């Protein structure tokens, strides 16, 4: 999740005069997690639904409302210009959307410059899906001239100097050689033509979503900026633009709009027109459980930086600022009411809903099996379900068969989901080979088998396995264990000779116990073969059993 760092002084500059101690107390209540703080700065994590709070100006805007310093919809005036951006029809299949805005009279300094860069990167992540969906470019307006052109160009047809470079390069060369070009190449190198933004004089502003030109680079002397947002999702493109523009507008920047001319339509951006939604009094009362009236709701929504209008004794019209991209539904407004009320002030009580609890049969059986094994003196262990073929099959001398395989394993150690518990127990013994013997351990757990008839094409089976190791561990010991285990469950043990490659030939028994037609337990037990024991680096005999419950 995105993390931003700012100073108490920055907040004060943005109009929030608050004691640092009080700030630390309050920040969590607006929906953030304080990662760290010291005497001058605080580092907070915000949830990804609120990209508008990823700048100090955005945080200040929220805090002003929450603290009642400034309530209601923040006002941003936009001056319309006739500057135009022409969009090439060939971009429709590459990166179809672009929005522009101008912000003038920004008080730029080193700190501000750094904050803008970080804000931009955070937005790339949170809204932009690492630039795939949305990418933002911010340019020095004073070195370029309208109209602007958003074009699909031949990758070799033009050269320009990319940001932080001294050489002119073609777009194709940038993708192959420039650090950022290589990093983001996959976003456009599948297309015949690449997107490019130019000005009237064919000066290159940007090769979105890869890199800007060196020409329009921001410096501490920059006062007026042009912002471009390109992307594959028009809604997200405009949201990102609105969030940046309103954040810059908070500290006095003058916002100007441009006309974006598509082949089939013209749009004026940025469009900061607030959204309207209705919230119902009764619904808010019922869901929050708070004793609210319409006036309370107006006050609380005002503290959430929204304007309201009572349209009936039951309904409130809510006017939502354009930077709030998280409000999808009336329930989100109800949430804002509760947040402004402050969670700390909400008293809890238990619901008066009488229900009778039922245990799940599956887990009930698990516990029964555990009880028996613990009573027999076995220590329960737990293993991960992710394992690998080497340990699951090869070490146990078993043939590979159908299994659940992970598409992108975290490591070659965790490539599949277990079908058996035995190798997990052997690994446990391996990890504990220097500990005192005897060691008697068991696991009750889920394994997954393939089953094309099921919705998920798999089925979960319950297994139990146990192993014993000490210098005299033998067939009789494990046979006694299996027999008493099954007897404790009310089953008779029926056994027959079984050739199982994990076990010494002639020292393995297949076991079956049938309770009724639908329920049966089957499995095997015996003395593990010397190769298997050695594969797990063990030095003493090991005996064990594994049973599966099928019903």
């Amino acid at each position: 999740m995105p993390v931003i760092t700012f100073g108490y002084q920055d907040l004060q500059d943005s109009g929030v005069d608050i004691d640092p101690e009080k700030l630390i107390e309050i920040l969590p209540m607006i929906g953030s997690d304080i990662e760290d703080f010291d005497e001058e700065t605080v580092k907070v994590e915000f949830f990804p639904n609120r990209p508008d709070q990823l700048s100090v100006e955005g945080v200040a805007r929220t805090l002003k409302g929450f603290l009642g310093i400034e309530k209601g919809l923040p006002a941003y005036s936009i001056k319309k210009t006739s500057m135009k951006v022409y969009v090439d029809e060939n971009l429709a299949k590459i990166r179809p959307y672009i929005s522009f805005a101008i912000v003038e009279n920004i008080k730029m300094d080193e700190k501000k410059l750094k904050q803008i860069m970080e804000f931009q990167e955070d937005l790339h992540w949170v809204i932009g899906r690492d630039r795939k969906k949305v990418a933002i470019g911010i340019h020095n307006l004073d070195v370029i001239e309208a109209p602007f052109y958003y074009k699909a160009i031949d990758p070799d047809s033009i050269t320009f100097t990319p940001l932080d470079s001294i050489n002119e390069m073609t777009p194709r060369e940038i993708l192959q050689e420039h650090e950022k070009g290589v990093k983001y190449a996959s976003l456009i190198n599948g297309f015949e033509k690449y997107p490019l933004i130019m000005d009237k004089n064919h000066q290159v502003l940007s090769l979105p979503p890869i890199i800007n030109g060196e020409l329009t680079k921001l410096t501490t002397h920059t006062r007026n900026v042009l912002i471009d947002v390109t992307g594959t999702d028009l809604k997200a493109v405009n949201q990102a633009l609105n969030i940046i523009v309103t954040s810059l507008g908070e500290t006095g920047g003058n916002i100007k709009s441009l006309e974006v001319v598509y082949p089939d339509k013209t749009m004026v951006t940025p469009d900061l027109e607030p959204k309207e939604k209705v919230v119902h009094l009764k619904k808010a009362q019922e869901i929050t459980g708070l004793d609210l009236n319409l006036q309370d709701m107006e006050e609380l929504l005002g503290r959430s930086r929204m304007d309201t209008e009572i349209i009936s004794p039951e309904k409130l019209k809510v006017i939502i600022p354009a930077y709030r991209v998280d409000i999808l539904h009336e329930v989100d407004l109800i949430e804002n009411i509760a947040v402004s009320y402050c969670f700390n002030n909400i008293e809890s009580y238990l619901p008066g809903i009488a229900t009778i609890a039922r245990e799940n049969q599956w887990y009930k059986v698990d516990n029964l099996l555990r009880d028996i094994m613990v009573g027999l003196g076995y220590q329960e262990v737990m293993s991960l379900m992710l394992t690998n073929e080497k340990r699951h099959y090869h070490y146990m001398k078993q043939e590979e068969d159908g299994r659940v395989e992970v598409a992108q394993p975290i490591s070659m150690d965790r490539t599949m989901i277990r079908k058996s518990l035995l190798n997990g127990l052997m690994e446990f013994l391996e990890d504990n080979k220097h500990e005192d013997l005897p060691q008697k351990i068991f696991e009750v757990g889920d394994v997954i088998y393939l089953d094309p008839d099921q919705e998920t094409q798999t089925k979960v089976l319950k297994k139990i396995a146990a192993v014993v190791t000490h210098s005299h561990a033998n067939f009789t010991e494990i046979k006694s264990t299996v027999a008493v285990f099954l007897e404790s469950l009310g089953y008779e043990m029926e056994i027959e000779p079984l050739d199982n490659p994990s076990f010494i030939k002639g020292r393995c028994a297949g076991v079956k116990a049938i309770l009724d037609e639908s329920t049966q337990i089957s499995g095997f037990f015996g003395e593990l073969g010397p190769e298997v024991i050695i594969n797990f680096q063990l030095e003493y005999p090991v005996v064990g059993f594994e049973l599966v419950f099928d019903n």
Partner: protein
Amino acid sequence: MSKENARIINELHIYEKKVLKALEKSRQSLIPEDIVQSQNLDIKSVMSAAGSLASKGLIKVQKDTDEILSLSPDGETFAREGLPERKLLEILYLQKNIPMKDIGDETGLNPKDVKIGVGWLVRKKWANIDQGVVKITTRGEDSHRTPQIDEKLLHILLEQCKLSSSNLEEELKDGLKLLKSRKGLINFDKITDHTISITKKGQNLLEDGIIIQEEATQLTHHHLKTGKWKNLNYRGYDIQAEYPEFYPGKMHPLRRIMEEIRNIFLNMGFTESRGPILESAFWNFDSLFQPQDHAAREMQDTFYIKNPSTSRLPEEGLVDKVKQVHEDGARTGSEGWCYHWDKDVARQSVLRTHTTCVSARFLKENPPPLKMFSIGRVFRRETITYKHLPEFNQVEGIVAADEVNFRNLLGILKEFYKKLGFEVRFRPAYFPYTYLSIECEIYLEEKESWIELGGAGMFRPEVLEPLGVETPVAAFGLGIERLAMIELGIKDIRMLYKSDIGWLRNLPLKNGINLE
């Protein structure tokens, strides 16, 4: 009799008593052999009883070590036949001088003995060598009939077989020195003599009276059946003695915590549910209103499956409703996510990333009012470190009813955490499938800080409407391993799955269970 003496006497083995009795009778120090005879015991029993009595301070065992001399086979030959220099002297006495080169022929001695003999002739000053001729000295003449001290000792040893080196006469001690300087004639053996005497404490005990009764260590089936126990004394044990280690069978500590949580929910009237571990993206994400381009759905964070790569989607009606709600909010009043929802993306199989899909499935099948919980394994694409595992357990609970509200959700959470032994506080949070979302923080006394443990919220209409649920649903969940680490006081999450058996064996059972 003092209590202490009574205890000591009770703990005495019958052999120990017999040794004490022997000392009482003789009223003087004894050697073990005396006791063997008088008490009819074997020497091993006497020594072991004496050792044990000495460690209790009841007797004193004095050890005297002595060196015992005996002849080696070579020594025996020399003792019988005379030393080589003696043999040479016999001849020399008659011939007075013999050239070195003729000695072998004249005496019939082998070259080795000739060499030794000549050496000792000179050393004992019985002869000297002048220009290759051995000549007898006056001293040699005098010694002709007189055995020397070393020869005397050899003869005595031949007669007596063994001699204690400490009891030798002074003269013979010098002889021993001479013989010692010749290799391999005499064997030296160390022996230890034990002298046993009673101590004051032992005397004291004897005065109290020790009764020797037939005694037994183990009460046997035979004793009980025959009534023999009536005449037997069962000796008391030293209860502080070492004992063999015995290993318990226990439930895994993480399992105990899962059981604790399970019981809390059952006690609060929640019904337990269970769902697939390998799940379709549809149930894991789409049914929970997570847009198909949501970051959490990326390969980076979620385990997708190579085999079987897809799952079947549920009934068409439900799939359509979910599609609509994603695209434009459908009839929920939501804006939706405004994108084209793709069935194929929903079909992909994943290892479930949370147990919330169990809640969604349960809501589809069961009408409110209801309370449900589920505990189960979930998966995230994390590398294994002390902080993270790619799989862990999660618990999830929901309450669905017409009248359930946000304050109820807080109430249930407070009660739940209280039962776990924690104070809880809440702050706003965000999850794609809830509104009035909260993060729960619990207070840790030992860290004097609040830490995040669990999330909650009300299920969004976009989640509920396609499932056909018309009441509000309060939902909450938490990761169990994190709680377990706090309760068990461990810093490395791997300890739970790659456990040290010693840790599992030694962990007190109260851990993980709130004794309150």
